[in-house]
Every structure is written in structure tokens, then in C-alpha cells.
């Protein structure tokens, strides 16, 4: 936003005739900006109204979830809605830990997300660098093999991935949960693009200093790739934390599940304890939502530029 505003103002000043500029550029800038805002001021009211009401609608389900998590089950199921509980039921959050193997699921979610993120960053930067900056036989063919996976919807490899993991005896284990997700065609594509855009001079200089290819990669090129690495880390964390289908397929016992699949087992009970379900859902989403709110700009720009979840 700031960029564009600045741009508009500079442009406006540029187009102001010289005699006017003679009266002092700063005040002219301020005045032009004021006229501009004045002219468009009316529409900002509409913009705030639309974006404000829209934003509240977007956030409402989360707010409602928080309110329900602090209500009694009777209040949640009341035919006339209870918008604020008679008494805040903080105890619902404690009961999450009795109702679900919450801690072991949280631990599983954290573990698989950390392992996959670290593995993807390591393997994708290494391979992306080699594909972008090194010469070797069969490079084009191997790159095509990796990138062809980007065109394929995940259902196409899911059945066989399941059979492989089953064959390794890894169903209902951390190994089975993380395994295919250690490797990413998208991440390799992302990192290759990043390394392609870098200048060759740095590599040359390091080579003359006697650095071997790994040292060049690790000490010179990797630090320059940090913005793309953070995009890869963000997409991997979000995907791994939120993913449902793979954990659903490779785990059957709820103690072995990550949170995404564990929550799904709460649905369909005849006697649903809604407040506890809401509290559990909020706790399950919280780490990622907090991360998002802390890193907001980076996450939004990263996801929008990658075009992928």
C-alpha cells in the first residue's frame, strides 16, 4: 500500500509545472496529497464499511468458536442462541486433555511438521541448487522427472504411497506419517527458480578462493536464498500442520494421529460435547494462527506468490 501511495505522490509532483514547484516542493506534495485524499475521501468511507463488515464476517466463525468453547453444552444447543455464556467455562479447555489424546497428537503434529520442514529445506535447496547452477549429464531429464510431479493431483500417487509405507511396516508410525512429505517437487521448483536468478560472480570469486562446491553452496549461495527458503518453510509448515487425507489413510489409532486427523474423529458421536470440541479445535489451530499473526506480511506475500497452500 505504502509503495503505491508514494509512487502516486511522486508522479503527481513530477507533473506539476515548474513555477508551482518553485514555491517549495514539500508543501506542494502535501497539498496535492490532500486534494487527492479529499477528492477520494468519500469513497474511503465506503471502503472501510465494506472491508470492515467483510473482515468481521471472515473473523466471526473464530469468535463464535471462542464463545462456544467457554459455554456449557446446553447453552451451545439452546434454540434461542446464547451469545454470551452465563459463566465462562474455562474448565472446557482442561477437559480437552481427557477427551482426546491431545498431548500425544500435538506432539505428533509438531514432530512431523518440524521433520518435514527441515528435510524439505535441506533436500530441495541442495537439489534446486544443482539443477540451477551445476552441469551434469541427464540434468534436463531428471529435472523433467521431478517437475512432472507438479502436474499430478495427489490422488494419483496416494494408493501406491500407502502400499509402500505398508510394505515398510510403517503404518501407524511417525515414519509413515512423514515419509513421502520429506520430498517435494514444488520445493525443488521454488528453490531452483531462486538460484537461477542469482549472479554468477559470487560463485566465481568463491571458486577462485579454493572453496569446494558444497562450501560455495553452503556459505555463499544459501544465505542469499533466504527469502525463498522462508516461503518454502511457511508453505510446508501450513500444509503439514493442516493436512488431513494422508494421516487419515496411514493411521488408525487416535493416539498415533496428528491433530488434524484426531479432530476429525470427534465428529459424529451421538453425544457431542460441543464446547470441548470447540476448545480442542482452537488449541489445534492456535500454533499456526499465532505464527501467521506474528509473520503476517511474510506469510501472505509468500503464499500469494507461490500460489499454493
Amino acid at each position, binding site marked *: 500500500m505504502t509503495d*503505491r501511495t508514494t509512487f502516486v505522490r511522486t508522479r503527481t509532483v513530477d507533473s506539476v509545472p515548474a513555477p508551482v514547484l518553485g514555491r517549495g516542493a514539500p508543501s506542494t506534495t502535501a497539498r496535492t496529497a490532500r486534494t487527492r485524499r479529499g477528492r477520494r475521501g468519500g*469513497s474511503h468511507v465506503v471502503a*472501510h464499511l465494506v*472491508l470492515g463488515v467483510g473482515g468481521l464476517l471472515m473473523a466471526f466463525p473464530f469468535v463464535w*468458536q471462542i464463545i462456544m468453547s467457554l459455554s456449557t453444552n446446553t447453552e451451545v444447543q439452546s434454540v434461542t442462541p446464547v451469545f454470551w455464556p452465563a459463566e465462562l467455562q474455562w474448565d472446557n479447555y482442561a477437559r480437552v486433555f481427557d477427551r482426546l489424546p491431545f498431548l500425544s497428537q500435538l506432539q505428533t503434529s509438531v514432530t512431523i511438521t518440524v521433520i518435514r520442514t527441515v528435510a524439505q529445506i535441506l533436500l530441495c535447496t541442495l537439489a534446486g541448487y544443482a539443477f540451477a547452477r551445476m552441469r551434469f549429464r541427464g540434468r534436463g531429464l531428471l529435472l523433467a522427472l521431478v517437475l512432472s510431479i507438479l502436474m499430478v*493431483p495427489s*490422488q*494419483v500417487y496416494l494408493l*501406491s504411497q500407502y502400499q509402500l509405507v505398508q510394505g515398510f511396516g510403517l503404518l501407524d508410525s511417525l515414519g509413515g506419517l512423514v515419509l513421502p512429505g520429506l520430498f517435494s517437487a514444488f520445493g525443488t521448483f521454488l528453490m531452483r527458480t531462486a538460484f537461477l536468478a542469482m549472479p554468477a560472480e559470487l560463485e566465481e570469486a568463491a571458486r577462485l578462493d579454493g572453496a569446494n562446491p558444497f562450501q560455495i*553452496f553452503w556459505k555463499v549461495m544459501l544465505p542469499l536464498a533466504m527469502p525463498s527458503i522462508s516461503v518454502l518453510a511457511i508453505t510446508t509448515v501450513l500444509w503439514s500442520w493442516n493436512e488431513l487425507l494422508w494421516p487419515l489413510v496411514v493411521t488408525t489409532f487416535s493416539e498415533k494421529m496428528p491433530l488434524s486427523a484426531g479432530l476429525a474423529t470427534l465428529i459424529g458421536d451421538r453425544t457431542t460435547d460441543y464446547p470441548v470440541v470447540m476448545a480442542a479445535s482452537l488449541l489445534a489451530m492456535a500454533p499456526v494462527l499465532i505464527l501467521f499473526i506474528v509473520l503476517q506480511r511474510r506469510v501472505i506475500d509468500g503464499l500469494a506468490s507461490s500460489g499454493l497452500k
Partner: protein
Amino acid sequence: MAGDGIWPWLFIAPLVAGISVFYFWPVLQTAFYSLTDWGVFGGWTFAGFANYVTLFADPALYLSLGNTLLYTAIVLLGIPIAVYLASLLNLPGLRFAGLYRVLFFLPYVAMPTAVAMVWRVIFNGDFGLLNHALAIVGIDGPYWISTPGAATVAVAIVGLWSSLGFSMIVLAAGLKNIPPEMYEAAELDGATRWRQFRSITVPLLTPSIFFVTIITVISSFQLFDLLYAILGSSNPVLPKSMSLVYFFYREGFVNNDKGYAAAIAMVIFLIIGIVTAIQFRLQKRWVQGD
């Protein structure tokens, strides 16, 4: 070809091995499985195109395809809304723009199974807020998550809610590339805001609009998480409201019919392939047209 010796192989080996074993080989295997018939106790026989013949005669395919299309159509309604919201968000000097971005983007990053829990209650036929709100304006709302059709609409509303922020941000980035002089010139010519929106914003934004449309269509065809978590796996409405991917999941992992599931996967692959091909074709035309 002068190469870098052993180094590149050390760099790519772990990734290429993993991709080959866990992605590339499975794709070939699924293509092959779609031509086989699996017994109840394991073991398979070659079946030629029998799975495809059965699949194309199976009403479940058309039902799940129809549900997926209905879902996609409703989620696509979010795009014109996102264009409008993005144009507001990009107004010069708009305050709280960062806050609005965060609010609209929040549903996109939230865990689908976790947000599904609150939406299940909002859609509840007896005590849900939605039907309560509808009752105020005199509409008797259905039992959303247990009525075929209404269930798909309910899931699609959540799909729209969760993808709106993403479309809006991508479109807002596209809007930044429109030179502001164009608006200034139009303003000098006395063009109204609405006229500027129609004659400058929409045409120059077409490539971005097209991009989010394709992304939305492709991700809508992958509908599974929200459907599964909002309706619940034991919901009797599921066979009537299932998506293509749920149909695949049911055949492959609930009914254990691997050959049939593989054929469904190949059909999903084909549909997504066609959408991607259309994207490439049109994108090329736009680039040349410039």
C-alpha cells in the same frame, strides 16, 4: 559436456531418489493399477479397460462430478467479490489495510478440520445460527448437513469463506501493476469510479483474474478435507454429497478396491490436465497479445 564431477550427483541424489520412489513410480503404478482387478484377499488380475467401462457407467461418478462442479461454481462466485474487495484494499492512503489483509486471510491458513467444527454448529438445523438468522427474515432453513444438495452448498460456503482472502491478495498484487496515471487520466476525463473500475481495472486485471480462477478450479476439484470434516465420515448424506476425491477415497481405502480407485484417480488427473492445458493455451495468447 564438461561437468562438475561427482558433486551434482551428491546434491540431487536424496531428492531424486525420494521423488522417484514416492511420487514418480507411484504415478506409473496407479496408471497400471487402473487396468487391474483386485481380489478381496489381495492379488490382482489384468482387466484391461474393465474398470473404466464400469466407472463410466457408474452413477456415483456423475453424482460426485456434479457435486464437485456445484461446489466449484459456488466457490468461483467469490472471485468477483474478491476483485471488488481488492480494488478497495488498493485505494491510495487507505488506513488499516494491513488489518483487513490479515482478517480476510485468516480462514485460508486455518486448519480445515478445526474450522469445520464451528461451521457444523453454525449450519446445525435445530440450533445453528444460520437458520436462526434465516428465521428472522422468514425463511425456514433446511437441515444443512443432512440434506443432499444443501450439504454441498454448505460446504461450498465454507470453501468460499476460506479461499476469498487468497484470491483477494493475489488480485490486489495484480492491481498494483496497473499504472496510476491511467486512473488520473480517466479522472481528468471525468470518468466515474465505477467507469474506471469497468474500463481500466477489470481489463488490465484479466490475467490475474484468470490465474485465481484456475487455482480455484484446481483446488476445488481436490475437495476432500472440508467435506469430510463438515459432514463427518458416518453421515448418511455422504454417498449423495460426495466429491470426486471422496469417491476415490471411499473406493480405495474404505472399500479397498484399488483398481477402481486408480481409475477414478486417473479421471481426476485427466480433468485437471485439461484445465491446466486451457490455462497454458490462454496464457500464451495473452502474453503474445500484449
